[in-house]
């Protein structure tokens, strides 16, 4: 087990190097010259040159790459080009609000999807099953943007159930006041594809031999579903949640933009619009690292959930 973990960690190095190269290629090579953002309303070429020097974008590429690698490992990406705030501080302060929205979304969505999926799988092939599948497919086809615009207008403004937007310093007030509407909308959008996916996991298990054996043993269908099918379907479900986990940190930038939630997603969109490269670079590298670690954790959890999985 330890040997396996060490080997996996070792294998991450080339991938991480690749991620760093990709990001470097995108932002230091393809990306434009950012000096202009900082120069202001009236600027002369001398000033622009001065700014380029301060940002280090006038250095040779190998040197810039070296600086970037150093930044990654010292966790010091310097300062945002547009606000001069330390990038590490941006990341730390923006993660909270994003997680306040996305953790409940992930939990609720997964729980609801599992519940519904098992119910639908139970009545598989029936009219209910098919109707729910059609509803899901339709719900998935409506653009998230439409959900947000209509949801904010309908629930926040016309019905007045929630505040239209906002955020406070109090965690509980955020959770009880500002978060419910965005969370609800995110679940609206996310539930349908999860439900469809989990249903297929359950159906796959139901067709397995051990289920037939269990039924043949005379176990009631409910028990078969809850005890055997659910337990075994948990593996692909867990993988799926694992895959979604790193994405949670980017949150849904659309939600954050429309509901004025000071999260990472909104920060990235602003950074994209203002060519604030240090912020995007830092977020991308660290989320890539996180993804790799989460993938490892998921694989390790397999072992714990399902002893049949061997560590090759």
């Amino acid at each position, binding site marked *: 087990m330890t040997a396996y973990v060490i080997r996996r960690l070792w294998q991450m190095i080339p991938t991480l190097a690749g991620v760093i190269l990709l990001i470097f290629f995108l932002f230091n090579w393809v990306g434009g010259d950012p000096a202009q953002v900082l120069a202001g309303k009236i600027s002369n070429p001398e000033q622009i040159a001065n700014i380029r020097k301060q940002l280090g974008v006038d250095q040779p590429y190998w040197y810039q790459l070296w600086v970037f690698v150093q930044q990654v490992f010292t966790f010091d990406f310097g300062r945002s080009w547009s*606000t001069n*705030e330390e990038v590490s501080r941006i990341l730390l302060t923006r993660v909270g609000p994003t997680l306040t929205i996305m953790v409940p979304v992930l939990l609720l969505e997964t729980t609801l999807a599992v519940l519904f999926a098992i119910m639908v799988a139970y009545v598989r092939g029936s009219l209910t099953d098919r109707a729910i599948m059609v509803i899901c497919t339709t719900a998935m086809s409506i653009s998230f943007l439409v959900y947000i615009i209509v949801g904010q207008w309908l629930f926040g403004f016309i019905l007045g159930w929630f*505040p239209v937007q906002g955020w406070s310093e109090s965690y509980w007030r955020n959770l009880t006041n500002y978060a419910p509407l965005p969370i609800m909308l995110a679940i609206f959008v996310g539930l349908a594809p999860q439900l469809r996916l989990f249903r297929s996991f359950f159906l796959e298990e139901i067709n397995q031999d051990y289920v037939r054996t269990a039924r043949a043993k005379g176990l009631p269908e409910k028990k078969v579903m809850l005890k055997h099918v659910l337990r075994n379907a948990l593996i692909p479900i867990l993988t799926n949640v694992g895959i979604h986990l790193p994405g949670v940190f980017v949150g849904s930038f659309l939600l954050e933009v429309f509901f004025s939630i000071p999260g990472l997603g909104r920060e990235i969109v602003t950074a994209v619009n203002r060519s604030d490269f240090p912020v995007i670079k830092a977020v991308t590298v660290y989320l890539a690292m996180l993804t790799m670690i989460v993938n490892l954790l998921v694989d390790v959890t397999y072992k714990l959930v399902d002893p049949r999985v061997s560590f090759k």
Partner: protein
Amino acid sequence: MPRPAALLAACLACAVLAAGPAAGAVERKVLRVALRTAEAGFDPQRIFDRYSVGIVENIFEPLLTYDYLARPVRLVPLTAEAIPEPEEGGTRYTFRIRPGILFADDPAFKGRKRELVARDIEYSVKRFRDPRYASPYEWLFEHKIAGLDEVADAAKKTGRFDYDAKVAGLEVRDRYTISFKLLEPDFNFLYVLAMPNVVPVAREVIEAYGDDTMAHPVGTGPFVLKDWVRRSKIVLERNPNHRGYELDPRWADPADEWDRRAIDELAGRRLPLLDRVEIFPIEEEQPRFLAWINHEHDYLDETPAEFIEQVLPNGRLAPALARQHVAVFREEQPEVTYDVFNLEDPVVGGYGPERVALRRALVLAHDRDQEISILRKGQAIPAQSAVPPGVVGYDAGFRASQQDHDPARAKALLDLFGYLDRDGDGWRESPEGKPLALDYKYNAGSQSNRQLAELWVKSAAAVGVRLSASAVQFVDLLNDKRVGKFQMAGSAWIADYPDAQNFLQLFYGPNTGQSNEARFRLAQFDALYRRSLAVPDGAERNALYREMNRLILAYAPWRLGVHRVFNHLLYPWVKGYKKHPILYTNFKYLDLDVAARQAAVK
């Protein structure tokens, strides 16, 4: 999950209470407003966007400022004892600072009270030229102050700005007296010293915070920055060290309803009255608008044009808002929107008659009526010259028919100069018979810029000119405009100080590569501009300005757009409000009827 509106209201009320120091204390006055765009920071010498500067207005104090009520705007002393007379033919200005003005407390002062002195002014002006800060307003003091360019040049070589170097033009005569000596006469210099970012900072503070000065503004102003969650929340609180202001009603217009009300509500009281201001940057229009409608904010600054028919149907306040006694403050801003032609471009540039004709025809083809009625919902005045109303040197009698939408004259002009459709594909060719395809660059991130581009494409097509629009990243747009890598592009300029010169410098040849985006170089114009600098405000200068504006119309380096009109919506519990054309905020003059707000929100 859904909760009734009552609970929301209760929560809002709680927020108001929670903001107080302790239960049972006197009701604190907390103003809540939205900001249209994300702020950059609060180091006065390092910022330039209007919204950040607007916040800084409350934290720092320049030597001079504008009277709250006087229109046209009027300079008044703030930390200076008086407005100085120009000496030595407009090249020397001497200020005496009022003794006893204190900075807000800050750990950098190590527990001592810190008085504002002349050295602080000297230090802050020098900061504009420090290459380390790459100040966006460096140009204000370039080739301006005697001896300052030399110190700045030395700093560029060594990389360190020598703040202890003696600068002849920044003469500190005693603890409270500073005298500016200029290289050339400048009769607008006092306006520069009234700009909200030309303000004294304390050297100890700047040195203590190093790179973090954006987050640690320490000034002598009526408010201090209490809390800042970037791009999400800015909290100002009253500065306990502040000496207080009083409203000066002398320049008010007795016929003006806003002036009367402000005097009623504020006269004789010690300002500021607000305890706390909470500012929320919200860039999307729907949430910003709905949040105000739902009473989450106390006033709505610059109502988005798209919602104007919701609040002002047919120009009258909507009944639902009228019932709540909402007030509308209509403001013509001293700004101009425009599209620049690149005069160095081989197709749209040049000064020969057929090149001028192409630009003039495009200007005539552009459907400005639609721009105003559809895109700006009537909330704009068509610009007649590059100078907007409300600034010194604006000529209300100047009317330019060359900028009106007139497709017939546009077509006639194109025909006349040989821009004809020779191959019958529906599009005109250049007089030399080459295909004519123009390009308009716009900011990809903005929906409204996209619609302006759409209008250009339509307008040109209507007279048979093929024009495409390309979306570029904001940064690239700025860069392309500066280096002249474009044919046509949109822009806007808002007054830094209320003088026509601030707008006409946009056409001055030597400013090419800086603010002269059109790269317009016309000897006649440049000569007029130089002459105007040496003349104080008056009929002679106005005549020069008029000549310059005529040249702009004749050569059309710009398509003049509009002067936007903004509608600010206030709930009745906001007191003392009047919007100033140059200053962005007015927190220090506002009062809040907290009881009325609570009653209404319930």
